[in-house]
Structure formats: C-alpha cells, structure tokens
C-alpha cells in the first residue's frame, strides 16, 4: 500500500471494505457485528481524517482504528459476562485423566504432517467454527493471545482478569479447541492407555 496517500472516502468501501471485514470477522466471529464494526471504523475515520499522519498507509491507519473498536467490544463483553464459576469450574480435559492424573484416554494422533493442516481450507473452516463455539471470554482471550500475539499483561487489562485466571482461561480455550478439532476434523479413534 502507498504510504501517506489519502484516498477519496467514496472509494473506501471498495478499497478497504473486505479487508477490514475479514479482519473483524476473524476476531468477532459474527457477521453482523463485524459489518457494524467496519461501518463504525469508516465513520470514525471520516471524522478524524486529520489524525492520519501519512507516516503509514491508509489501510494501516484504518486497521488501527478497527483494532481499538474490537478491544472496546471485548471489554464490553467482559463487563457484561464477567468471569463466573462456570468458566473456571471443571476443566475440559478432566474426564481424560484417572484419579492419579494419568491419561485414561490419550489425545488421538492427528496424522500426516501437522504443519500441513493449517494450509488446508477445510481445516481452517473447522478451526473457525470451533473457535466460534467457545464462550466469548475464552474465544476473546485465545484471539488476543494467539491470533494477535499480545502479551498476557495487556490481555489482562482488556478482559479485566488476573494473570493467574488468564492462564486458566487460555488453557481451557486451547483444550476445548483441541477437543473440538479432534472430533470435527480428525475424528480419529483416541489412543488407549500409555
């Protein structure tokens, strides 16, 4: 993209609409929420065109605005549905272990070269579905950590949780995703014993 170049807002939807939409969709997992967020981003951008320094590309500037709006959305969700007992109660892997903490049912082998999975369109679709199936707290925490690569201190501020709770939430999110993919994608027979 051209650094510093300003374009006519009349062209924004065609130029940046899909890009911003995909960015929002991956992080919000909801079509209408993502569409609203794109609209809000363009409106905010229109009202603050003076803040575009020209030091970056217009696309980067717009994504910056969108990022803030998504973080606000996460904050709102965390306020509306604060972390409750249910989020921290029994761990999703609990049934896989015996009383001594050994595997009763080990994780199934996922076969093939694991690094190749994420290049498959269908695998990515299942992954998104599984992510959408998590509670907002789990999905948002996972998204901030693994999709955006933010540090835990920053995530704690957005979700208003302690670091210890965040580790628990992240492990639960990973465990739920792992199990969901095992069922929906790999569908393999779980390994027995160890």
């Amino acid at each position, binding site marked *: 993209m051209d650094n510093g170049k300003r374009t006519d*807002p*009349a062209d*924004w*939807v065609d130029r940046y*609409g*899909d*890009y911003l*939409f*995909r*960015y929002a*969709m*991956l992080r919000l997992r909801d*079509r209408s929420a993502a*569409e609203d967020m*794109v*609209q809000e981003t*363009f*409106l905010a951008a*229109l009202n603050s065109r003076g803040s575009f320094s020209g030091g970056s590309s217009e696309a980067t500037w717009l994504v910056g605005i969108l990022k803030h709006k998504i973080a606000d959305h996460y904050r709102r969700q965390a306020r509306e549905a604060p972390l409750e007992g249910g989020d921290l109660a029994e761990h999703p*892997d609990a049934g896989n*272990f015996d009383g*001594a*903490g*050994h*595997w009763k049912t*080990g*994780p199934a*082998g*996922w076969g093939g070269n*694991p*690094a190749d*999975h*994420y*290049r498959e*369109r269908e*695998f*990515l*679709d299942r*992954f*998104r579905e599984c992510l959408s199936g998590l509670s907002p707290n789990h999905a948002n925490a*996972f*998204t901030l*950590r*693994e*999709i*955006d*690569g933010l540090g*835990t201190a920053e995530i704690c501020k957005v979700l208003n949780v302690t*670091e210890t709770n*965040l*580790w628990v939430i*992240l*492990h639960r999110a*990973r*465990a739920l*995703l*792992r199990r969901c*993919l095992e069922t929906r994608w790999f569908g393999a027979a779980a*390994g027995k014993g*160890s």
Partner: protein
Amino acid sequence: MLSCKDVTHLVSESMDRTLPLGKRVGVRLHLLVCRFCERYRRQLLLLRETARHLALEGETPGEPLPESLSPEARDKIRRSLGTA
C-alpha cells in the same frame, strides 16, 4: 513427580510465560517419556500456528478470499458515509 494432568496445564502455561526452572525441567523430562503429553503439546502448538496463519491470511495478496462484505452491508455503509 508431575502427573500427565499437571503437565498438560504446565505445557499450556509455558506458552504464556517462562516457567520456573524446576517446573521447566520436570516438564521436559516428562515429555521425553510420555508420548501422549508430547502429542498434546504438539497439538496446542499447532493451534497457535493455525491462529497465526489465519491472522496473516487476510494480508496476503492473491489468496482466495473466504469472506467479503455482503452487497447490502456495502450499501448500508456507503449510505452512512454519505458517499452512496
């Protein structure tokens, strides 16, 4: 001795912070001898790689675009911007 259950927790935690030395060593030794825990670890790392891949996907020109704004949404946004 760490149980498999402990190790699965620590494997996830190690993806978010540096574990204290004692735990780090304990996990590493356990993973050498436990194929299920090692498999679990690789699968959590695959989740991370997949997430990073999805983040980059939107930025890669020429990739097929899985999702785009609906025509209705485009019109609505254009109207709100006063550029319809």
